[in-house]
Structure formats: structure tokens, C-alpha cells
């Protein structure tokens, strides 16, 4: 189903009176954030709370020979000094593998390293003190004797016979390998008029959440319960993991997540120092707080995107793409991260490359190797920026080679909008996509022809501007196919409980979480619409495993599509229950009634019959006046998980317009556009802001962000002065447009939108830079970030 502006209004289940679906309702929880009255985990203090700081390995790879703690134990304020061996008595190690990633292997990882440190920054000893400052003072008194070992830092040589094996028991440094061949790539390349081959390199970068990772663990030995205040995206997943590795039942663990200062996939993994913090609380029987400082964040928050992709495309002179080939190599640090593994990004690159296009001939290999650097794992848009930049980079290089307009080559190869359901070259399934409509929308919105004319006239004056594009697909609304089938206890389903309170307001509790993206607003909008109350009468509770339905949280663009549908169904269920009660009070038939704007009305005439506060008064305080045998049920829970499709793929296209100063190598971003199709748009403002924030995060990887390691495995720029992030002055305005192709898997029809911006932006920027420099004879730039130095090198100027 397509909804376009000029089509007659289609009446659907979503067309409830006073619907909030499709309205830019302000988020209900913002005022406190503008007043300094939020509650981030870093703000939490508890009685008897102590602070932990960690002694971290300065070596990328070393034997831990001795740890002398006597001086630290005597330092002012110190409560305990705990080594890895001591902590291992409290918490068990973990191994980050999943059964559906065939052959993936990793080694046991401990909360604090024992015997060997395997990356610079890995914790080797914990110091607990009254204050963080005292804990840090005492860390300096811990004397660790290291026996340095050769560091494996280059992914290219990690599998060479002469390279030391980081985990000897695993036999080699190969974490995971996937080979995929579809249709007939050899024939495809043989049929091509032109084959373009190049190597794309993506710099390692990281999330740089404004609030670093933070956790307060409170083991109450009296209750035998652990309460963890945790800045996380997945409270129930963490509940399971804390319980499992501390030897507790899950009901003994409560994870509370209030405000979280940025997540982006950084805060959805198991971190050794956080596991150490919960273990220290259990060991010391008091609350322990850990907040990573910025340097710790750089050396321990997961990194991502360190990929080298050799890639090849075959194309005919009429623009027909005939074959794809990629060979991806990525180094993920010394451990596959638990529990999602570090094989997923490479796996996604194999899944997504070539995905928007009809050409089925595809050969792919991805290899994931261990190395002595910080760990890598899933970060916003996992794999998408790489697969998209590789695919779209190849498409535009091919277009340039055969002299075809970059939008025209896409028109000739993108999967037709009427060809769905369809599948990509890797076999991924598409329910319904709208590549061509999105492209046409973009063409018009950006005034492509006009910009090309401007580019040409400016070029004559020595001003070098470029236009670049990236069609993309995005994995959203994941089913159990993502993690559950691989054995990880990460819930794909999610739930919403809605209850009518005693004054006729509704309270929603949900397993999806608020990371700032607006999940609470979306749940409120959907619940208000499906039940029938003004949104001011809806309160949403998230982030508490004691008080929300079991759910997955926020990742893979799932909160609105999955949590939203659960809210829709729960709202309907509560409406049915409330109307049964109203019918009983009014001696009417439930099907003749409805709830609109917070009032029970006659369905046909809209006449007011009963206010909800009056209904609640009777049901809660005077049930004796209801007919015998009638019991009001003013609370309902519904769950939802996608079943018809493993993922709800979305699609879209981005464009970047920029100017390159060929003397300095600096890139000025002039404008960015994104058309995307996330199905039903519940809140246009929130969707647009997800796109904009995502685009800027993608631009960061394309132009600035890079964790630079030397050959010894030392991170050289682990602070915010040396590691560059996008700031306001360098960012362009971003125009966002939509095509709406709802998923039929849910009544709501919403797909996710959290990662589309990040997926497409790096490829679009890369293509725009190359478009700007191509007439100057520059070598195509394919190594991110595109620093001034690399641009000048490509121009042959340095």
C-alpha cells in the first residue's frame, strides 16, 4: 500500500477519531531535561555508595606477572583493592559466540584480566574507595609487573603463520568467516563491458556518547537482590547477564534505566568493567559506582567500522550492473563482544552489499580476525555504512567510467517498486520497497538539474563542488532471527501494559527504552490513539525490569515498530475491557460504544455517555453497584514480534552537496538530503530528527572520526581534542522527505528509522567528494575518514 499526497484518503484501523498517528507531538519528558532535572546514572548516589577506578594495562599485549597492592590498600579512603583472580570467585567469564554465525569462536573474557592483558586499556585491577578521586589516587600506587608480548595489530597479517596467536587454545586468530556466492558472478563479470575494482577502507571509530558509560550496582545482602542503575539500551538483557554470571536467579536482579546520555549501540553490550562493578558490589555488600572517564571511554567503549573491503562491479555500457564481488577483512580486538558477538558487522556487510539492486550475481567473503586493540562490536547502523558506501561507491565509479549520470544508472538498476516481494543478492527478503519513488522525490526536492548547472558554472570559476548519492536499505524491526535463534537471551518480542488509573488517565509500561529518540512519545501517541484519550492523560514508564513487560529494549531500530505495535494492541485490548465495563454501567451493548477524547461515547452519534473518571470511580470504589458476576479488568498487556518477515527492510536515498578547497583539502558541506521510507510515520518530527542525527553521525565517520593506533597497539588520539567529532559549525542543514510504504506485518505499519541516516551518509559524502575532484584527475578517494591530507594526496598535491 502506498500513501501519497494526492491519493484519496484511505480509511484504515489507524484512522481513529483524534488520532495522534502522524502528528509531531512534543515528547512528554523533555521539560526536565531542559531544567537540569534529569536523572542520568552518573547523577545517582546511594547511601554507603563507594566508587571504583581501574588500573588499566598500558600494553596492548602483556603477561601480568605480579600485582603489588599493599601500598594502595593503605591509601586514604580505600575500601578494597581487587585483582582479576580475586574477582573471578564472584563472577564467571563469558564467551561472545552465537550458534547461527557458523564457526564463530572466541575465548573466555573475565571481568578483570587474569594472567594476560590483551589490549591497551583492559582493566587489570580494581580499587574501591570513598570517592572516585581517592580510588584514582590509589590506582597509582598499585604496582603491576608486566611482561610485554608481541602485539597483533594489523588485520592483514593476523592470519599469517608467523603472527602470534592471541588465544593459543583457539588455534588461530580467525574469529569468523563467511563466504556467500549467489547466481553466477563469473558469468556476470564476463558479460560486463567494464569491470571496476577498488579497495575501500573504513577507519575505526567509536560512539563518543556525551554521557560516558555509567553504572551503580547495589547488592542488598538482606534482600539477596541486586539493583543496578545502568545507562543501557537493553535492561532485560542485562538482567539476564548479571544474574547468569553472578550465579543469581533473574528475579534477584533489577535493572533500572532512567535518563541515558546517548547510546547509539555503545550501551547495548557487556563491558568487563561494568561486570566487575556488579561483582564488586556483591563482594563488598554495598553500592558501587563506576562512570567511565573520557579516556577510559575511548579505550573501552566498543569501536566499530574497521573494515578493508576489496570490491568489484561489472557493468554494461547501457548501465546494467552484471556482478558484484567483495572481500571484507575486519579486526575486532582480542574478544568477540558478548552477547551479540563481533561477527555481526561483517555478516551484515555480506547481507546488505548490492541490496538495493536487481543484479543477482554476487560473490562475497568476510573474515573477522582477532587483534590486540580495543574490542569492536555493533554501533549505530551496524554494517550498513560500509555496505552502502561500497555498493554506492562502486555504482558511481562505474557510472563515471561509462559516462552515465549517477541517478540514471540507479534508475536502470534499482529493484522496481512494483517487483516486491523480492530479495537482494545475498538472499535477504524485502516485503515492499520504494527505491524509484524515493529517487524521484529526491531529484525534485534537491533540484538536481539546477545544482548540476550551478556546479558547472562554479567549476568554470575554479570552485569545485560535488554531488554524491547513496541509495540504501536498512534492517529494522528484527525478529528472533537476529539474535534469539543464535542462542542469545535477547528478546525480539516486546510488550506494553496499559492500565486505567482511578482518575481516567492511562499508564503504559513497556520493555522498549528511551535513549532520547522519543520512544516514550511514540508509545504515548499510539496508546492515546488506540485507547482514545488525550495524550496529556498518558504516562509512559520504561527502563525498569521490575515494572515493565519483558522486552528487548532499543536497538536495530525496533522501539517504534515493535513497541509501538504492542502499544496499539494493548490500547485496543484495554478499550475493549473498559467498554465492557461501561456497557455494564450504562446497560448498553459494548459494540455501540467507543472511547473518544477520554470519554465513553455512543459509537454512532458521538454523544457523551460516561466520563472515564466516573467509570474508574465506579469500577474501583463502587464495584458493588455493578451487576453480579461482572468484574472490571482495567489493565491489559499485549506483546508483539514480527513473524511474517525476519526484518522489516526500509529504503531511501541520500544526497550530499559539498565544496572541496583544493589548496587546503578542506571539505565544506553545503547541504544534505535524505528521502526515506519507514512505513507509517508515527511522529514526523521525531523521524526527521532521527534521520538528521543519524546523517551527522555518518558524516563524522566519513570526514573526521578515527581511532588511530600505532603499530604497538597504542591508541594515539583517545581524547576529544584529538579525536574529531562533528560540531555545529561544520554541519549542513539536512532536508528530509518521506515515502510511506507500511509493513503489513503489523496493524500500525511502522518500520524503524533510527539508522537510515548513518547508513547512507558516508557513501553520499564519498561520492560527492569524488564528483568534485574527478575533473581534476584525482585518484578516487575510498579511504575514510577523508581528511584534508588524503584529499591533497588524491589530488597529487602532497
Amino acid at each position, binding site marked *: 500500500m502506498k500513501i501519497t499526497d494526492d491519493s484519496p484518503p484511505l480509511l484504515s484501523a489507524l484512522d481513529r477519531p483524534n488520532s495522534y498517528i502522524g502528528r509531531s507531538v512534543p515528547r512528554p519528558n523533555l521539560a526536565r531535561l531542559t531544567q537540569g532535572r534529569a536523572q542520568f546514572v552518573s547523577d545517582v548516589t546511594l547511601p554507603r555508595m563507594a566508587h571504583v577506578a581501574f588500573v588499566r594495562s598500558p600494553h596492548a599485549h602483556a603477561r601480568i606477572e605480579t600485582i603489588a597492592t599493599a601500598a594502595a590498600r593503605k591509601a586514604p579512603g580505600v575500601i578494597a583493592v581487587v585483582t582479576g583472580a580475586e574477582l573471578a570467585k564472584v563472577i564467571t567469564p563469558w564467551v561472545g559466540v552465537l550458534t547461527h554465525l557458523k564457526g564463530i569462536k572466541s575465548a573466555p573474557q573475565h571481568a578483570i584480566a587474569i594472567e594476560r592483558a590483551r589490549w591497551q586499556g583492559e582493566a587489570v585491577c580494581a580499587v574501591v574507595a570513598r570517592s572516585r578521586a581517592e580510588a584514582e589516587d590509589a590506582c597509582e600506587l598499585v604496582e603491576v609487573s608486566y611482561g610485554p608480548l608481541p602485539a597483533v595489530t594489523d588485520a592483514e597479517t593476523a592470519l599469517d603463520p608467523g603472527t602470534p596467536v592471541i588465544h593459543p587454545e583457539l588455534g588461530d586468530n580467525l574469529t569468523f568467516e563467511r563466504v556467500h556466492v549467489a547466481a553466477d558472478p563469473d558469468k556476470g563479470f564476463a558479460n560486463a563491458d567494464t569491470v571496476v575494482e577498488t579497495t575501500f577502507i573504513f577507519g575505526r571509530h567509536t560512539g563518543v556518547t*556525551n554521557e560516558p558509560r555509567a553504572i551503580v550496582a547495589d547488592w542488598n545482602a538482606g534482600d539477596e537482590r541486586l539493583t543496578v542503575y545502568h545507562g543501557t539500551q537493553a535492561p532485560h538483557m542485562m538482567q539476564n547477564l548479571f544474574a547468569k554470571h553472578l550465579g543469581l536467579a533473574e528475579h534477584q536482579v533489577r535493572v533500572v534505566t532512567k535518563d541515558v546520555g546517548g547510546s547509539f549501540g555503545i550501551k547495548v553490550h557487556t563491558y568487563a568493567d561494568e561486570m566487575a562493578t556488579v561483582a564488586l558490589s556483591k563482594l563488598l555488600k554495598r553500592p558501587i559506582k563506576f562512570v567511565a572517564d*573520557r579516556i577510559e571511554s575511548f579505550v573501552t567503549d566498543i569501536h566499530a567500522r574497521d573494515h578493508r573491503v576489496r570490491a568489484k562491479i561489472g557493468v554494461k555500457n547501457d548501465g546494467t550492473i552484471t556482478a558484484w564481488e567483495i572481500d571484507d577483512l575486519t579486526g575486532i580486538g582480542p574478544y568477540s563482544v558478548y552477547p551479540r558477538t563481533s561477527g555481526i558487522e561483517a555478516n551484515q556487510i555480506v547481507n546488505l552489499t548490492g541490496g538495493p539492486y536487481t543484479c543477482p550475481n554476487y560473490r562475497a567473503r568476510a573474515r573477522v580476525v582477532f587483534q590486540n586493540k580495543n574490542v569492536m562490536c555493533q554501533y549505530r547502523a551496524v554494517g550498513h555504512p560500509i555496505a552502502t558506501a561500497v555498493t554506492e561507491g562502486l555504482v558511481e565509479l562505474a557510472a563515471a567510467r561509462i559516462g552515465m549520470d549517477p541517478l540514471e544508472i540507479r534508475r536502470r538498476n534499482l529493484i522496481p517498486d512494483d517487483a516486491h516481494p523480492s530479495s537482494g543478492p545475498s538472499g535477504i527478503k524485502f516485503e515492499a520497497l520504494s527505491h524509484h519513488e524515493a529517487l524521484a522525490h529526491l531529484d525534485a526536492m534537491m533540484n538536481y538539474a539546477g545544482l548540476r548547472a550551478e556546479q558547472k558554472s562554479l567549476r568554470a570559476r575554479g570552485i569545485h563542488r560535488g554531488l554524491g548519492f547513496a541509495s540504501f536499505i536498512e534492517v529494522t524491526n528484527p525478529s528472533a532471527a537476529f539474535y534469539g535463534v543464535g542462542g542469545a537471551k535477547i528478546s525480539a518480542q516486546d510488550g506494553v501494559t496499559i492500565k486505567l488509573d482511578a482518575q481516567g488517565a492511562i499508564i503504559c509500561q513497556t520493555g522498549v527504552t528511551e535513549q532520547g*529518540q522519543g520512544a516514550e512519545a511514540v508509545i504515548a501517541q499510539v496508546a492515546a490513539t488506540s485507547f482514545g484519550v488525550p495524550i496529556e492523560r498518558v504516562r509512559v514508564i520504561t527502563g525498569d525490569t521490575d515494572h515493565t513487560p519483558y522486552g528487548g529494549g532499543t536497538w536495530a531500530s525496533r522501539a517504534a515498530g515493535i513497541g509501538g505495535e504492542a502499544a496499539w494492541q494493548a490500547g485496543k485490548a484495554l478499550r475493549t475491557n473498559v467498554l465492557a465495563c461501561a456497557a455494564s454501567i450504562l446497560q448498553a451493548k459494548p459494540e455501540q460504544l467507543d472511547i473518544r477524547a477520554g470519554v465513553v461515547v455512543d459509537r454512532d452519534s458521538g454523544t457523551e455517555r460516561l466520563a472515564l473518571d466516573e467509570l474508574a470511580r465506579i469500577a474501583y470504589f463502587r464495584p458493588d453497584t455493578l451487576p453480579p458476576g461482572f468484574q472490571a479488568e482495567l489493565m491489559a498487556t499485549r506483546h508483539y514480534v514480527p513473524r511474517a518477515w525476519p526484518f522489516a527492510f526500509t529504503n531511501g536515498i541520500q544526497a550530499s552537496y559539498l565544496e572541496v578547497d583544493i589548496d587546503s583539502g578542506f571539505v565544506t558541506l553545503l547541504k544534505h538530503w535524505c528521502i526515506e521510507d519507514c512505513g507509517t510515520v508515527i511522529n514526523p518530527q521525531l523521524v526527521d530528527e532521527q534521520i538528521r542525527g543519524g546523517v551527522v553521525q555518518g558524516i563524522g565517520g566519513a570526514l573526521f572520526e578515527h581511532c588511530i593506533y600505532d603499530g604497538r597497539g597504542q591508541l594515539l588520539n583517545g581524547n576529544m581534542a584529538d579525536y574529531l567529532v562533528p560540531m555545529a559549525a561544520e554541519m549542513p542543514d539536512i532536508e528530509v522527505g518521506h515515502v510511506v510504504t507500511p509493513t503489513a506485518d503489523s496493524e500500525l505499519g511502522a518500520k524503524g528509522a533510527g539508522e537510515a541516516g548513518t547508513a547512507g551518509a558516508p557513501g553520499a559524502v564519498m561520492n560527492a567528494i569524488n564528483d568534485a575532484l574527478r575533473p581534476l584527475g584525482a585518484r578516487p578517494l575510498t579511504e575514510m575518514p577523508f581528511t584534508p591530507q588524503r584529499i591533497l594526496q588524491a589530488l597529487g598535491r602532497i
Partner: protein
Amino acid sequence: MTERLHDITVSVNGEEIRERVDARKTLVDFLREELGLTGSHVGCEHGVCGACTVRVDGAVVRGCLMLAVQCDGARIETIEGVADTGEIADLQRAFVERNALQCGYCTPGMLLTAQELLRNRDVPSREQIRVHLSGNYCRCTGYQAIIDAIEAVAQARAGQKR
């Protein structure tokens, strides 16, 4: 150790505070840990991200680059105080309406920095707003919504309609 501790008297959001502080304690740690004013945040701890922005004697400063002991006799204002006085009520409203914050961690610093700009200019251009905010890091929004919100308030304050 006694020479490390110093008695200071400061005005914080209009209240007189007398405290003994460790010489090495930063202003933002003092506000957060000693006074419980957790609206000022700690981001980069070396003056790059602007999450710790507060006002000292009317000027916007980085709470992580100033020591509490340096503030003896100073008038300090944090987001909690500035919010309570109503001075930035229009900016706060505009941020909410425009969804100019997602996680909200940078927001107190953004608001105080924006107010500094709007107090000193009539109606800044979008470019001037972007440059003025170039020391305040936001990872969520991509900045455009923040620029929009500040621009709208600048125009409204100047009596213009957007």
C-alpha cells in the same frame, strides 16, 4: 594534607554557600558532588564538549576547566538556577517544541551558551549561531534543530515573526 583544603564562600543560584574544598576539585565536580546540582554534566573533562557549562559572575565558563577554589567570592549560576528564574523560559520552550534535544545531556550547556549569544546580539544568522555553539558537542540531533530553536527565539525576542 591540610594545605589542600580551602574555605570558600560562593553564591550559587542566589544562595550563599560556605564550603571547605579540595584544591584540586573542579567547579563542576563541586557543584555536582558537594551541592547535588547535577544539571551540569561531565562529558570530556578537558574543555571540548561544553556539557559542564555554567555561569561565573555572568560569564559562561567550562566547569571542568575551573577549580572550585578559584570561585571564592564569585556568583555562580547553573542550569537549575537559570531555569528557576525564568530567564530562559522561551529558549526551553523552543527546544521542547522543536525537539532540539534527544538524550538531553548536552542541553543545559546548549541553553546557557545560546543565552549568552542571544544576550549579546540582536538576531544572529544561522551561521553565527552555529559558530557560537561550536564548543558544545551534541551527538544526537545533528544540531539543525538546536539552530532552528535558537533562531526562532532570537527572532521572537527581537519582535519579529518567524
